[in-house]
């Protein structure tokens, strides 16, 4: 009987790991659809960003209350993995609480901490559910999230609460079984949180309690394995990708736009023809981004790391004044398009089919979206690249901008005025 359980466990674990790795490889492929960019410089500064932004969640603390709740869920997630390690070893080896004899009294303290965290996670998730569904918080009510994204967030929160409750149920039953010295239930001492709930279970017979404990144990671990496979299809992926994304975060001054050396070179040759190479057969480069292939892999990593929290859009002047632009939606659409392109869909492009000209035109380049993002996403970079595509490849600019361009070119200023009048203010 025991061996059957071990085999079933192995099968479940193997299937979970297999499907997860397949999906992970798919996401990696989709991110690498982007063009190459070298982000291997300044490892010390990058490590610092990783520690501060991802591990330390520095940006989250712009909103302290939410940050504390989020921190519970985050810490719970990271630390409870230790507990899952024990469950996996137990499941494969057919043991129960294999770490207990080795850790002695420390084991009880450890489980006690896990239990406290489990409660904090469940409570925080419950508060998050209320924030999302009951309190009228604009960034959660936004039409950006209509359909799947809104349900996705709720599924995640509900699952986390259920998983934590299963963990606590399991420990409560286990605790009672320990007091009865049931076989296979080593005495680890009363658990901190579930110890208080033991009286609820004391009326049950020992076989019933074993049944409850086993059922909770199986549902807990199967739930975790299922959740593991749900994660890479959902916004919950940020718990993994936030880390590389913080490491590869842009290190340049916020106001600096990426340079295009190809154009710089052409302008140089136009101004100083003597420098131009004589073999004029050089390939004409593409300017700006029309599709995900033209964006960098970091832009696409951004899209997959996006948590859809909407802090960017809540701060965006265009979104706040009812324009079509929402930086969160720019990221969500980029991810959707990367997914589609990864599946081999070639009949659509990110620009026009997913992101409209109207959205791109509404950006004031103020950088609020970049400032707010807790996981170092840079929606502005994508917007800039697509604007270049519009203006330089498609000659698609509003008339006023065309006029501004010609003013700059002819009058050295964006307004219609003679360069000779530029110093008129001195004599006025």
């Amino acid at each position, binding site marked *: 009987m025991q061996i059957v359980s071990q085999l079933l466990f192995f099968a479940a674990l193997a299937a979970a790991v297999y499907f997860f790795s397949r999906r992970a490889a798919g996401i990696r492929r989709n991110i690498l659809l982007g063009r190459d960019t070298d982000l291997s410089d300044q490892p010390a500064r990058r490590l610092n960003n990783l520690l501060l932004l991802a591990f330390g969640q520095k940006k989250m603390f712009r909103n302290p209350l939410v940050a504390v709740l989020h921190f519970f869920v985050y810490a719970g997630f990271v630390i409870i993995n230790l507990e899952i390690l024990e469950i996996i070893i137990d499941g494969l080896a057919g043991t129960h609480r294999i770490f207990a004899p080795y850790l002695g009294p420390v084991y009880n303290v450890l489980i006690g901490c896990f239990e406290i965290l489990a409660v904090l996670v469940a409570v925080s998730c419950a508060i998050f559910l209320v924030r999302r569904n009951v309190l009228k918080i604009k960034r959660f009510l936004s039409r950006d999230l209509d359909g799947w994204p809104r349900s996705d967030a709720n599924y995640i929160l509900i699952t986390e609460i259920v998983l934590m409750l299963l963990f606590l149920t399991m420990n409560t039953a286990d605790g009672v079984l320990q007091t009865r010295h049931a076989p296979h239930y080593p005495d680890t001492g009363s658990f901190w949180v579930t110890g208080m709930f033991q009286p609820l279970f004391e009326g049950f017979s020992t076989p019933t309690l074993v049944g409850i404990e086993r059922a909770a144990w199986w549902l807990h671990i199967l739930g975790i394995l299922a959740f593991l496979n749900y994660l890479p299809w959902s916004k919950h992926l940020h718990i993994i990708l936030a880390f590389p994304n913080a490491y590869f975060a842009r290190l340049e001054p916020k106001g600096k736009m990426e340079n295009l050396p190809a154009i710089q070179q052409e302008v140089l040759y136009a101004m100083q023809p003597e420098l131009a190479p004589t073999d004029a057969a050089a390939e004409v480069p593409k300017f700006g981004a029309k599709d995900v292939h033209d964006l960098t892999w970091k832009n696409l990593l951004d899209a997959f790391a996006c948590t859809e929290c909407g802090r960017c859009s809540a701060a965006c002047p265009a979104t706040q004044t009812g324009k079509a632009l929402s930086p969160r939606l720019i990221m969500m659409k980029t991810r959707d398009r990367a997914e589609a392109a990864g599946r081999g869909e070639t009949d659509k492009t990110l620009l026009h089919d997913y992101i409209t000209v109207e959205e791109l035109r509404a950006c004031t380049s103020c950088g609020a979206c970049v400032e707010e993002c807790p996981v170092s996403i840079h929606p502005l970079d994508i917007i*800039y690249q697509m604007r270049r595509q519009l203006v*330089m490849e498609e000659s698609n600019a509003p008339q006023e901008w065309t006029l501004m361009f010609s003013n700059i070119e002819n009058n050295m200023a964006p307004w219609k005025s003679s360069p000779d009048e530029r110093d008129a203010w001195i004599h*006025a």
Partner: protein
Amino acid sequence: MQIKTMAEYFAEGETPEVLFWVGCAGSIDQRSQKITRAFAEILTRTGTRFAVLGKEEACTGDPARRAGNEFLFQMMAYNNIQVLNGYGVKKIVTACPHCFNTLKNEYPELGGHYEVMHHTTFLQGLINEGRIKMKEGGSFKGKKITYHDSCYIGRANGIYEAPRAVLEALDAELVEMKRCGSRGLCCGAGGAQMFKEEEKGTTRVNFERGREAVETGAEIIASNCPFCMTMLTDGVKETGKEDSVKVLDLAELIARDMQE
């Protein structure tokens, strides 16, 4: 006003302490010209040896670049860098955050390396050095002033303290808007929006910001950018408070109450 150009300094075989990069708005736009004159007056009165490029100055290319026209930007940058390097310019001060950002962050990669300051930081320096002294009981004493963080000085370059330190010298009461500092709301003009009609929405960005500034109850909205100036002035007009609420640049505020 007697202001020397870089060419004049050059002809005399001298170099000024700093180049005042005026920018297109500061040169051409009538309202912004007043900011330019105020700042030039401060420089003159503090005995700062400065020059302007005059007719030799051209648009940095910022609006072209942000609209997506990289060609035009590179052309402007090439020419400006030729002029600046030709005069051996080392230090630049400008009253325009967009010029500041481009000269400071984007020209180095193209061969233009200068120490670039925005006039907020420059003014703070002059105050700290005691080169600017304010009149006792000046015209802003005890008055409520609110400060609008421009995106290109604030978020883009992380300068939040200097302009507030300058305002402190006025002995006024600084009241912050709900959205300020790194959370500040854009005036709506950046990213080349200044030069076209806004996209359709429920309101205009500058109306939203103007309303927020007026709601602080401040009599003066201090700005540090010619674009913000235009947008905020318009925003205040929309609230109907243009008679009681004035939008003034930091340089204008200082110039008004400086000791002789």
